[in-house]
């Protein structure tokens, strides 16, 4: 995976130079956002299962999808849906910490849409759940950190669309 810091160091090394003023400025802004990022990751890490429950309650729980014939029925498929939403939350948290989307491309999105199509997973409902997760996160983390998480959840949404 890439991260903001390594992505600035590697090209500087290829030129054999120190980080220039603009790279240092970028890094400075990243460092300054660091405590917000870590604080958000801390909250998410300790409340992940509640974030997922709330996300499902907001998006999927009361629809046809949890009834016989729906993609979250029976319980095995309900659990698979929780597992996938937890993956999305965990990798979006990693990406938010790194301020870089590459881990999402490598570990989540690579082949995901094709897999979902093969398995008959309704992608529009997944996207609905991801949008609900953004709302739940903004309620729990506040606007700034919520928006920052939104960047990475939107990246997953874009990859599935």
């Amino acid at each position, binding site marked *: 995976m890439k991260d903001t810091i390594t992505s600035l*160091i590697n090209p500087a090394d290829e030129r054999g130079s120190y980080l220039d003023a603009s790279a240092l400025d970028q*890094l400075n802004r990243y460092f300054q956002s660091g405590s917000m990022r870590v604080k958000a990751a801390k909250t998410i890490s300790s409340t992940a299962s509640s974030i997922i429950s709330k996300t499902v309650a907001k998006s999927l729980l009361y629809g046809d999808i949890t009834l016989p014939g729906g993609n979250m029925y029976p319980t095995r498929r309900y659990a698979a849906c929780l597992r996938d939403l937890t993956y999305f939350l965990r990798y979006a948290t990693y990406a938010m910490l790194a301020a870089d989307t590459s881990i999402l491309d490598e570990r989540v999105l690579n082949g995901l849409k094709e897999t979902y199509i093969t398995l008959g997973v309704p992608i529009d409902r997944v996207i609905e759940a991801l949008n609900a997760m953004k709302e739940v996160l903004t309620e729990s983390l506040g606007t700034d950190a919520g928006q920052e998480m939104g960047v990475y959840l939107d990246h997953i949404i874009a990859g599935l669309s």
Partner: protein
Amino acid sequence: MSLVAQVIAQSDAAERFLSSSEIAKLEDFFSKGQVRIRTAQKLADNEQKIVQEGSKRFWAKCPNTPSNKGNPQKTALCQRDQAWYIRLISYCVLAGNEKPLDDIGLNGMREMYLSLGVPLPNLRVAMSCLKDVAADVLSAEEMAMAAPYFDRLIRAF
């Protein structure tokens, strides 16, 4: 790979959210962001001073060494390498770990210098002279940020 990427990879390998010790590592890393930037800038601004003054101290301790044999081309190459190590240390300060130094400058280093006929014990002295000069140039707080990487470099020789 920076400390941030390293923590993420570790957490991902365990297939879980971040542990409290991983969170603490990141909190500590980001809390020193300003010092990291300042230290890296100072190393860049003072690179030539550290190398030139470092060479003087090195030759005083170790006069019989390839860079001090009156071949200006060889001296320039040795000093260029030393400057490169200062640059890699500045990367480490920003990345929060030893990876840039290890990956770019230490992996294969022994084989290279042995093949060039540069005596490793002399280089060890040269590198510790660079560290001494850096300690004069940087503030105590900045040096605390850079010293572990100078030590790693010295140990590698």
